[in-house]
C-alpha cells in the first residue's frame, strides 16, 4: 500500500483546503470570499473526523456486544483486534473529534452570519462588496478630506 492509498483522506482534505484558500485569494468579492472560508472550514472538520476514524469501528453510541448489532459488527473483525482495541467487545470510533467538530459547525454558521452582516453593512455604506471598489471609494474620500478639511 502506497502512501496515497493509506493517506487518501488526508490528501483529499489538503486538496479541499487549498480550493478554499484559492477562492479566498482569487476573488475580491466579499460574499464569494465567505464561501471560500466556508470550504476551508469544512475541510478542517473533515480532517478531524478522519483522524478519529478507527477501521472496523462504529459510532460511539454504546451497544452491547452480545446483541444482534454487536455480533454483526464484530463478525468480520479479528477477535484479537476487538480484544485489544474494543471497549466491552465493540470497537468504537474516537468520540472526541466528533464533539469538537459538532460545536465548531454551529459556531461556524454563527460567525459566517456575522461576516455576512458586516458585508451587508459595507454594501450599505459604500455601495459595493468588491474590495477593490471599496478601497477606491476610501481613497477618494481620504483625498477629499485632505483637500478641504
Amino acid at each position, binding site marked *: 500500500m502506497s502512501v496515497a492509498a493509506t493517506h487518501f483522506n488526508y490528501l483529499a482534505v489538503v486538496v479541499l483546503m487549498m480550493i478554499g484558500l484559492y477562492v479566498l485569494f482569487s476573488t475580491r468579492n466579499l460574499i464569494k470570499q465567505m464561501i471560500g472560508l466556508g470550504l476551508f472550514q469544512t475541510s478542517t472538520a473533515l480532517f478531524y473526523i478522519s483522524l478519529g476514524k478507527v*477501521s472496523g469501528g*462504529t459510532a460511539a453510541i454504546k451497544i452491547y456486544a452480545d446483541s444482534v448489532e454487536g455480533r454483526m459488527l464484530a463478525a468480520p473483525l479479528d477477535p484479537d483486534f476487538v480484544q485489544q482495541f474494543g471497549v466491552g467487545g465493540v470497537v468504537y470510533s474516537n468520540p472526541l*473529534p466528533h464533539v469538537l467538530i459538532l460545536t465548531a459547525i454551529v459556531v461556524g454558521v*454563527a460567525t459566517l452570519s456575522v461576516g455576512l452582516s458586516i458585508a451587508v453593512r459595507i454594501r450599505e455604506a459604500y455601495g459595493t462588496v468588491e474590495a477593490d471598489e471599496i478601497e477606491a471609494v476610501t481613497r477618494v474620500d481620504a483625498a477629499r478630506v485632505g483637500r478641504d478639511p
Partner: protein
Amino acid sequence: MSEIALQVNFALNIALLLMLIAVGVAIARMRSLLAAILLMGVYSLVSAVWLIVMDAADVAFTEAVVGAGISTIVLLGAILLVRAGPVRHNWRMTIAPAVLVLGVGGLLVYAMTGLPEFGDPASPANAYVGRNYLIQTPDEIGVPNVVTAVLASYRGFDTLGETVVVFAAGIGVALMLGFGPRSSLPPLPAAMGDHHVVLRVTARLLIPLIALFAFYVQFHGDLGAGGGFQAGVILAVAPILHALVFGLHETIAALPVRAVRSIATLGVLLFAGVGVICMINGGGFLDYDHLFPPGVEAIIPPGLLGDPDHAHQWGQHFGIFFIELGVLLTVAATMVTIFYGFAGRAVEEP
C-alpha cells in the same frame, strides 16, 4: 454480510471525497454567486453522508441542518441585501493565488505523510484520551451516547464557551442588522394572482412536525444521536419555514423579536446557572455530581436512574438534561435572530 459493509464503507469514503472535490472545484470556478450557494448546499449534503460513513452520526445531524439549511438561507438573505451580481474574474488575479496554493498544498502534503495511517486504532489521537472517554463513560456518566457525555459533562466548560460564542454572534448580527430604520421592513403585499396552496398546506403540516422532531432529537440525545446543538438548529427551522411561507410579519407577530432575544439570553443563563448551583453545593463549576445538595443526594434511592452501583449518575443525568436545554434555547433563538436580521432588513433604494 458484514465484510461487505466494511468494503462498502471503504468505497463510499473514496467516492464521497471525490464528489466533494468535484463540487469544490465547481464552486471555485462558478461566476454566479447563486449557483455557488446552491453547490455549497450540495457540498454539505455530501459531507454529511461522508460523516455518517465515518461514524460521526451526531456531527452529520448538525451538518445536515446547518450546512444545507440555515447557512444556505443566510447566504441567500445576504446576497439579496447586497444585490450582488456575478463575480468578476480577472486573469491576472488568479496567478499569484495559484502559486501560493500550490506551494502551501505541497508543504501540507509533505507534512501529511508523517501522519498515522487512516483508521489506525493505535494512533496517538485514538489510543489515549478518546479511548479513556469510551471506557469511563458507563461508570462515571451513565449515558449510552459517549458524544453527549463528553460534550455535556467532561467538556462542559468548553461547551459553555461555544454556547456563549453562538450567543455573541447572535448579538452581533442583531446589532448590525436588527436595529435602525432599515430593520423594520414594511409588510409586503402578497403577490397578486399567486396562491401557493400546495406550499401553504404542506408547510402547515410540516411546521409542527419539525418542532416535534426537534424535541425528539433533544430528549433522545443521551440515548442515540442528538442533543442540544442539533435540536436547536432543527427547532429554528420551524419558524424559518413559517416566515418563508406565511410571511415574516406573521412570524414576528407570533414570535416577537424581543422574546427571541430574551430566550437566547435565558439559555446561556440556564447553562451557567447549573454550573453555579454545582459550586454552591460544594463541587466545582459544572460538576454535576454535586448538582443536588448532599441531603437530597442521601435520600435518592440508588438505581432510580441508571446503574445502582453509581448513585451519583442521578446528578449527571439531570445536569446534562438542563445544560442541553440551555444549549437548545440559545442555539434555536440565535438562529432565529440571525434569520430575522437578514430577512427583515429593507433593501436600500437604488
